[in-house]
C-alpha cells in the first residue's frame, strides 16, 4: 500500500478524532467544574445523533442545521437537570453522584428507545449533505467532504469554547468556580448557577458532538453506552480536566481506530481505542496531558 494510502488513513482518523475530542471536552468540562462524571454523556450524544438524523430524514435538512437546535435544547435541559437534581448530590459522597448520573443515563437510554426510529443516519446525512459530490483533493490527500466539514465544525466549536473560557466574563467565572469554589463564593459568584450552566454547556457539547458524528457513515457507535465508552476513553487518554488533552486524546484514538481498522480488520476498529487507553493507563495513568494530585 502506498504512502498516500496511509496518509489518508491517518488524516481520516485525525478528522474523526477532532469530533471525538469535542465529545471528551464536554465530559472533562463537567468533571472539572462540577466534580461529577456525567455517565449520561453518551446518552446525550446519542440524542444529538438522533436529532440530526431525524431532521435529515424528515425535512431533508442538512444535519448541521440540527446543531443549534440540539445544543440549545440540551443546554436548557442540562441546566435544569443540574439545578433541580444534580445540585442536590453535588456535596454528597462520590458514589452517590455516580449513581445519579448512571440512573440518568439509563433513563435517557429508555427515552431514546422510545423515540421514533430513523433511518441509519449516515445514509440520510449523505443524501442531505453537499450534492456536489463528496471528494476533495488536496495534494496526496483525498478528503471526504462530510468528514472534513464535521472536523471543521468541531474545531470551530472548540475554538469558540477556548475563547469563551479565556476571554468571556462568564467563562472566567466558571473557571474560578473550578479552581477555588470557596473563594469564588466569597467573591460573590453564584456557584450553583454557574455549575448548572457548565453542566448545560457540557450537555450541549455532547449533543453537538453527536450531531457531528452523525455525519459520517463509517462511525459505528450508535448506542449511548458506546458513546459513553468512547468519551471516557478519550478523556482518560488525554487527561480529565485538560482541553488540549481532550483534543490530543481524540486524535490519538481516532488515528488508532483508523489504522486499526485498515491494517487489521474493520471489526477490530473498536478495540484499537481500548488498546490506546490501556497503554495510557499503564504508562501514564493521569493521561497524556493530565496532572496528578
Amino acid at each position: 500500500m502506498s504512502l498516500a494510502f496511509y496518509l489518508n488513513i491517518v488524516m481520516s482518523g485525525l478528522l474523526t478524532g477532532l469530533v471525538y475530542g469535542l465529545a471528551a471536552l464536554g465530559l472533562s468540562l463537567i468533571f472539572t467544574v462540577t466534580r461529577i462524571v456525567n455517565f449520561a454523556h453518551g446518552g446525550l450524544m446519542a440524542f444529538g445523533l438522533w436529532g440530526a438524523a431525524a431532521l435529515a430524514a424528515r425535512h431533508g435538512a442538512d444535519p448541521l442545521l440540527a446543531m443549534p437546535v440540539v445544543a440549545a435544547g440540551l443546554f436548557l435541559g442540562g441546566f435544569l437537570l443540574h439545578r433541580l437534581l444534580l445540585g442536590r448530590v453535588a456535596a454528597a459522597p462520590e458514589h452517590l453522584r455516580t449513581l445519579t448520573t448512571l440512573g440518568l443515563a439509563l433513563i435517557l437510554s429508555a427515552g431514546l428507545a422510545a423515540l421514533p426510529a430513523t433511518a441509519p443516519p449516515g445514509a440520510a446525512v449523505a443524501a442531505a449533505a453537499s450534492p456536489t459530490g463528496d471528494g476533495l483533493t488536496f495534494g496526496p490527500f483525498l478528503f471526504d467532504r462530510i468528514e472534513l466539514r464535521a472536523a471543521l465544525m468541531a474545531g470551530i466549536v472548540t475554538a469558540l469554547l477556548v475563547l469563551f473560557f479565556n476571554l468571556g466574563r462568564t467563562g472566567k467565572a466558571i473557571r474560578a468556580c473550578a479552581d477555588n469554589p470557596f473563594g469564588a463564593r466569597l467573591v460573590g459568584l453564584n456557584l450553583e448557577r454557574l455549575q448548572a450552566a457548565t453542566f448545560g454547556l457540557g450537555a450541549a457539547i455532547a449533543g453537538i458532538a453527536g450531531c457531528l458524528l452523525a455525519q459520517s457513515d463509517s462511525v459505528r457507535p450508535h448506542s449511548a453506552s458506546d458513546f459513553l465508552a468512547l468519551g471516557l476513553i478519550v478523556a482518560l487518554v488525554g487527561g480529565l480536566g485538560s482541553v488540549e488533552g481532550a483534543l490530543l486524546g481524540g486524535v490519538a484514538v481516532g488515528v488508532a481506530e483508523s489504522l486499526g481498522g485498515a491494517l487489521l480488520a474493520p471489526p477490530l476498529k473498536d478495540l484499537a481505542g481500548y488498546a490506546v487507553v490501556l497503554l495510557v493507563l499503564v504508562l501514564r495513568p493521569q493521561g497524556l496531558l493530565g496532572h496528578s494530585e
Partner: protein
Amino acid sequence: MMPKRQDLVRLIETAPGRLARSAADLWRDWVDATTWRGKTLGVLVLLALATLPAWGGTPLVAAMIAVLWLAYAGQAWNLLAGFAGLFSLGHALFIGIGAYLAAAFALHGGLGPWPGALLAVPAAALAGAGIGALGCRAGLKGVHFTLVTLILAEAVRLGALHLDGLGAAAGLALPHPATAGKPVAFYYAILILTGLALVVVRLLLRSRLGYRWLALREDPGAAAASGIDPYRARVAAATISAALAAPAGVFLALYLRHVDAEQTLSLSRSLGPVLGAALGGIGTLVGPVLGAFVVVPADQALTWLIGRSHHDLSALKPLAAGLALVLVAVAAPGGLWPGLARRLGLLKPPPDQRGDAA
C-alpha cells in the same frame, strides 16, 4: 506487595476454622442485634428458603435462584463498594471470567467444567489485582477506578464478541450435564453459596484488612496518618471482591448452559449487583440480599408486562432501573434496609443507647 507465601498457606490451613468461627459470630451478631420480631421474621425467612423446593413450584424455584444469584453477586460487589469505598462498574468482567473458564473446560478437555471452576477464583483474583493496581494509583481521583472497571469490562466484552475461540457473538453452549432439568440442585447450590458469602464477608470485615478498609472509606487522610497504605488496601479489596464474584459466573455458565459476550459481559450484567446493593443498602450486610429480593421480582414483572403488551415496552426496564438509582441516590442513600429495619422494628438500638453497661 503480594502477601507472603507462608501467610497464604496459613490462611488456607486455618480457613475452615475461621469460617466456622465467623459463622458462629454471624449467628451471635444476629441474635444480639435483632428484636423478637426480627428474630421471628429471620427464622421464617430462613425456613421458607430452606424448604422452598418442597412447597414451591418450578417457576418459583427458578425465580428464587435468580434472586439468590443476585444476592450473591451483590455481596461480592458490595464488599468493594460499601466497605472499601471502590465503586466498580465492571464486575461483569470477573463474573465473565468464571463463566468462560467453566464453559471452556466443559467443552474441551473432557474433565467437565470443574477444573475451570477451580481456576476461576485465582484467575479472577489476578484480574482484580490488575484492575486495582491500574485504578488506584496514587494521585488519582477515586472515580478513576470506576472508569477503569467500566472500560476494561467493555474491552473484554468486545474482545469476546470478536474472538471465535470465545464463541464470538453466538457464544458458547455447554453440553448437557446430569443436572439438566433439575433446578433443585442449583437452588440449594446458590443458597449455600449466598450463605457462604455472608460468612466470608463478615469474616473479612472483622479482620485486620476489614478495619483498614472501613478506616479508608471513612477518612482516607486520617487512615493514612494511622499507617494504612491506601494502595495496598484497595488492591487487596479489588482482588478479593473479584475472587468472590467468579463463582457467580461459574454458576451462571452451568445453570444457563450458555455464555456469550452480550449476556455475560455486558454493562447490564455489571449493573445488576450495583442496583441490588444500592437499593438494599450499600455498606450493609443485609443490603444486597434485600435489594435482590426487590430487583429480581420487579425485573420479572416487567418482563411479563413487556411480553404481554402489543407495543414495544422494552424501554421500561432501563427506565425503571434508572429511576430507582436516582431515587435511591437522592432520597435514600443508605438504601431501603435501614428504614425498613427501623419501621418494622427488626433491630435493637445500638448498645450504648440501650442503657447496657459498656
